[in-house]
């Protein structure tokens, strides 16, 4: 039921998710931040039960932190992080699977356009994409991204596309998801662009 989508642009990547935390017919929470920061220049938008979301993202982000501590500050590229996350999903798949679908976005100096986005579903299929969606959102948003994405697009254009996707979901998606959180990852790291509800635990 979660909507997760992302768009790469020249110099970074935008990630967006809805903020609803619900199971079946009950809404637990309306200000959940489903985009977890993994390292200084990467983050993961996650869809799935909250338990697996938290368990999986903490496991991956702490392992990435351990790598940096063990290897004298060496950072893992977004590509390496995505492959690591996929490997862990694959390992757990035939034991006790993490029921999470993720979109991992990150910024690397050495990558041509800076930003990169990786689609990885709960069966551990990994694919690098220019833009992507997880969940029901795909049915509504992929066509918008197909039309609007182009190589070398700017941050404003990417955010505009994400906002167009959110508008489409508001218009046509049966399940009302009023609030979305949008984050950007670029050379300066991960930052929040906009949120519907303040995710902070007040």
């Amino acid at each position: 039921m979660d909507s997760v989508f992302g768009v790469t642009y020249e110099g970074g990547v935008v990630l967006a998710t809805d903020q609803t935390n619900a199971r079946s017919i009950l809404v637990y929470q309306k200000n959940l931040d489903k985009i977890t920061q993994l390292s200084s220049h990467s983050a993961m938008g996650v869809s799935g039960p909250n338990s697996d979301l938290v368990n999986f993202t903490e496991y991956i982000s702490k392992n990435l932190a351990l790598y940096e501590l063990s290897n004298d500050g060496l950072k893992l590229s977004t590509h390496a992080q995505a492959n690591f996350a996929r490997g862990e999903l694959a390992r757990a798949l035939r034991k006790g699977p993490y029921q999470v679908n993720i979109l991992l976005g990150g910024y690397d100096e050495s990558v041509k356009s800076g930003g990169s986005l990786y689609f990885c579903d709960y069966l551990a299929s990994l694919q690098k994409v220019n833009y992507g969606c997880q969940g029901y959102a795909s049915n509504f948003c992929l066509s918008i991204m197909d039309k609007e994405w182009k190589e070398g697009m700017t941050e404003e254009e990417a955010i505009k596309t994400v906002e167009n996707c959110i508008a489409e979901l508001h218009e046509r998606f049966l399940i009302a998801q009023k609030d979305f959180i949008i984050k950007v990852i670029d050379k300066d790291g991960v930052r929040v662009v906009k949120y519907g509800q303040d995710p902070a635990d007040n």
Partner: protein
Amino acid sequence: MASSGSGYDLSSSTFSPDGRIFQVEYAAKAVENAGSALGLKCRDGVVLCVEKPIPNKMLLPNSSRRIHTVDTHSGVAVTGFVSDGRQVINRAREEAANYFETYGSKIPPTVLADRMGSYVHYFTLHGSLRPFGATSLLASYDPETNDASLHMIEPSGVSHSYFGCAAGKGRQPAKTEMEKLALHKPAAEENITVREGIRQLARMVHAFHDDGKDKP
């Protein structure tokens, strides 16, 4: 070295009263008397060179390789007990393959050197194992930083990154010669290229070779 082990040199899990582990030092001795291995970090890559004595006329010159491929971006030259070296190289290959399976990218040179150092060091920790009598020179390229590097892993497990390093018989004169080369000038264009490095190392190996010291 005049000091005798006298009882403290029987096991690598024993320190001597003056804080030395003789077994590790003896392992280093095994390397000192073997064929030279030299490495040079040039501005556009790393050169490895190994002196390969052919003790027997019946030996096929192309056999017994001394410089080994660890991955598409890494190579290792060994000297000392070459059979010990083979173990270290096999481990390096496993580490590199394993890293690629986990992270989908080539193992960075510093990480590989660290893993090799840890592996070699492990064998100095247990009394039931003997240290490796081999030094490895690792030449490796890092696609992330677009730079190549040279590391040397000694029998003690110590590993450093170098502009130029040498192990084996001719290491003393080789190190002196290397210091005369432009290896670490601040302006990159002033440092020698790989092409020039190959010639320099070949010249050094040839110059410092001593027929009398050839051991089988």
